């Protein structure tokens, strides 16, 4: 969804989260089938953050993300088929297969470039905000980062500059924690073994940047804070920093994601559906308390913003769409070998 709206129907936001979830689950399955090489990262467990933030953006706004980018791209309306194709290294991918999962970007949707170096995108995003400010487009820039970025000097250099120049940039720090304990507060150890700051938001605070801590599992809370941030940014208030906390999905452990607990099920729809074995790793608890998708579903039910029939239908449509995307992606060609030598330098005119 690229239309800017604070009144985007709940169902549509839920549908985006569901799309991300099924996309990632299918990707993990593709990996077990050895459909593509290399390392990759999934957005399972963080869908409410990306969707909640991106729902506040317009077509002119710009997004920078990182190696954990699939959710952000889908939230901005990227085509799943072209994304799969890129991850698979096919010519039909958004970057002709030259970027892969790490560097997935969609310039036509305002996602011009994705760095996979920790802290790599922050200076670039900050520069994009400089351009947007000077161009007086009324647009803003969102830069999604992980908590590890605060260990990088580039982060401090960049936010100092953003504050100094009052740039229209929203830094969204997705702190996906390390635990599976209940309650967001306890999941996050600050100071940690690698960062001395008592709280992540201490950093933006020190630079006089507006900051908020939000429960990143909560779609409504994310949307509300993001809406406030975006409104203020459009009015020239200067940069914002949102720390969105989630409990890491158990399948994120290890170098490659693993489908711990199996594909997401909604007991409210299928009472007899159960998690597959491996839930001993704490997945059941996570699914009950920290899965943003399940939380959004339950709240939607409670507030009459969703019905089980809605979700069942959405899920069927989503799975079909994913099937179609995978089929398309896997049917496309590898890039021609000469592609390795193209696009090195753009010729001057």
């Amino acid at each position, binding site marked *: 969804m690229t239309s800017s709206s604070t009144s985007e129907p709940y169902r549509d936001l839920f549908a985006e989260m569901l799309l991300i979830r099924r996309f990632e689950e299918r990707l993990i399955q593709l990996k077990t089938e050895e459909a593509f090489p290399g390392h990759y990262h999934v957005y399972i467990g963080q869908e409410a953050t990306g969707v909640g933030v991106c729902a506040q953006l317009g077509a002119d706004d710009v997004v920078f993300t990182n190696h954990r980018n699939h959710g952000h791209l889908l939230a901005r309306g990227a085509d799943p088929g072209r994304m799969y194709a890129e991850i698979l290294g096919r010519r039909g991918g958004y970057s002709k297969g030259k970027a892969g999962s790490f560097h997935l970007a969609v*310039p036509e949707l305002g996602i011009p470039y994705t760095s996979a170096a920790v802290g790599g995108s922050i200076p670039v995003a*900050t520069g994009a905000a400089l351009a947007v400010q000077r161009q007086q487009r009324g647009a803003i820039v969102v830069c999604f980062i992980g908590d590890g970025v605060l260990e990088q000097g580039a982060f401090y250099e*960049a936010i100092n500059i953003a504050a*100094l120049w009052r740039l229209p940039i929203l830094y969204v720090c997705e702190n996906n924690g390390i635990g599976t304990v209940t309650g967001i507060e306890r999941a996050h150890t600050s100071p940690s073994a690698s960062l001395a700051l008592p709280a992540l938001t201490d950093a933006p605070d020190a630079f006089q940047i507006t900051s908020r801590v939000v429960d990143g599992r909560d779609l409504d809370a994310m949307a509300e804070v993001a809406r406030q941030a975006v409104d203020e940014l459009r009015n020239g208030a200067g940069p914002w920093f949102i720390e969105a906390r989630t409990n890491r999905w158990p399948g994120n452990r290890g170098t490659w994601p693993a489908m711990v607990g199996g594909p997401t099920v909604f007991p409210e729809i299928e009472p007899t559906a159960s998690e597959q074995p491996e839930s001993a790793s704490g997945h059941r608890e996570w699914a009950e308390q920290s899965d943003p998708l399940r939380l959004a579903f339950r709240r939607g039910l409670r507030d009459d913003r969703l019905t089980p029939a809605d979700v069942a239908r959405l899920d069927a449509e989503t799975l079909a769409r994913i099937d179609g995307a995978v089929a398309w992606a896997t049917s496309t060609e590898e890039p021609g070998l000469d592609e390795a030598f*193209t*696009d*090195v330098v753009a010729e001057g005119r």
Partner: protein
Amino acid sequence: MPSVSYAEALSRGVQDALSRDDRVVLIGGRFGGLDTPRAPFEPLFRDFADRIVEHPVSELAVAGVTAGAAMMGLRPVFDVRTASFAFQAFAQIVNEAANVHYQSGGAVTVPAVYHLLAGIRGSGGPQHSHAPQAMFWNTPGLQIMLPSSPADVYGLVRWAMLHSNSPTIFLDHPLLMDETGDVDWDSPPIPFGRARIARAGADVTVVATSIMVNRALLAAGTLAADHGLDVEVIDPRTLAPLDEDTIVQSVRKTGHLVVADESHRSCGAAAEISSRVVERAFDALRSAPVRVATPDVHIPFSPGLEAHVVPSADQVVAACLAASGRTATGAR
């Protein structure tokens, strides 16, 4: 045509670009170096103050900011100043800005210019004297320009700022600022990848970059007067892209090659140019190429020591004599 200083030509080139294209913005703008702004740069600061963005001592972030602004349609020029400071910015230049176009499958461009004052300036010591052209040349995705004359800087800087579509490392040299030469203010910008024959000759081809061009021309004068040797001096003006054809054509004529460049000898720019010529024109070479480069040592502070390691006009003379078989030993 007026004879003007390099600083004047650079300043006017920058002003011209700023006047022609609103997208051009200067991040930092002290082109002349640490000195009080030289008179030629005063109009730049006076007339384009709103196009100059001051920044903190944060080369890493600012280099990335430059790339990000370029991706969004501005045409920024980051004045990194002393080339050695570019090392603080290396990650953003080499591992971000340089990758964007390729990684996007050609969809996104980064028309950014990074201005560096490179080379041995005199008493700069080990941390202010780097000539990093070879380090950047070993990075795909970067263009590298090193003008050596007022006319060339006027032409090349306008190409970089108005027409280039890729990140450009503009290697300038503090010792060039006061050099003078003729400039046609109405001349068009000089596209990258076109060498200049600074002096036509028949006996030895000397390829020289940046400050070494003038030293090579001095050497050519000495060689003509004292040794009857007629040297052709070629200034590639850009290393990436490199005008190999002009160089090869010259070597086919002379049969001898000397390459003079201020980066360190090992894996330096002279090494690459020599290699390419050997690959393409081995049959035309009547002697091995000779390099004139800074030796693989740090640049010492003490003036006598420093003078001993700077690649000089005398070394170019010795190299040409060696290449042409007039002496037994090559230049250092």
